[in-house]
């Protein structure tokens, strides 16, 4: 996460305390992806990581969010190149299918590694 994505920092996270040593760049939080960092987007990606492709409604129900929220967050993930959106039909009904791109899978994996490093202290 770069500074632009985390403008609020120093008061709560001083750079010279034990948890955040002066060598700030080495801290795992710098490996967090600002796009995936947002909880709903992380949840959407966690859901898609387990499947080859999932219908929009399935993701919405699994993550427990509204269609509008899901649509907005998926658009952000799609813009970042992490999620692929495919429109199709089942019979006459239009369906939207979501899947993770290889870049999305790699970014999620790196983000989870960083979270594990932070959680591990």
């Amino acid at each position: 996460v770069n500074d632009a994505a985390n403008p609020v920092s120093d008061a709560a996270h001083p750079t010279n305390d034990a948890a955040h040593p002066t060598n700030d760049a080495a801290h795992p939080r710098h490996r967090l992806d600002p796009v995936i960092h947002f909880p709903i987007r992380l949840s959407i990606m966690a859901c898609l990581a387990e499947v080859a492709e999932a219908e929009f409604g399935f993701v919405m129900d699994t993550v427990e969010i509204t269609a509008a929220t899901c649509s907005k967050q998926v658009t952000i993930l799609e813009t970042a190149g992490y999620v692929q959106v495919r429109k199709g039909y089942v019979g006459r009904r239009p369906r939207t299918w979501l899947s993770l791109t290889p870049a999305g899978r790699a970014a999620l994996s790196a983000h989870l590694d960083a979270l594990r490093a932070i959680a591990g202290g």
Partner: protein
Amino acid sequence: MTDNSHPSAQDAEQALSRVDMIGTRAARSARRAARRYLLMTGAALTVAVIGSGLIIQSTGAEAVWPRALVIGVLWAVVFGSALALVNARAVRAAPARRPTVVTAAASALVVGATMAVGPDAPLLYPIGAAAVAAVWVVGAVLATR
């Protein structure tokens, strides 16, 4: 954890636990989808083998080309229907590669043997079809454990 904060260890643990919970839920659906895909393939093959046997037994030996055409149409319709049914579901997931390849290979052997020997021994069609179904059921179990 929000967009504009550095996560503490506790935030990170919460995020990981949420990922785990949603991942488990999605993985369960993915396993079901993969199992359905394999079972549907097995069912389609079973119907196709039995149907082919019926067509071969009910037509004369001289009608080779029309018979081949009808059997081809039967297989296309059966597999097209199975594919449409599977693709209409909300989740698509690929089953584990190795057990699926082994299942497909074993199934191909059984189908090949059945279709080769079947014209001389019609009883082999239902037996071969049952064996094909059994192969795919075992494959579905192994590939989605």
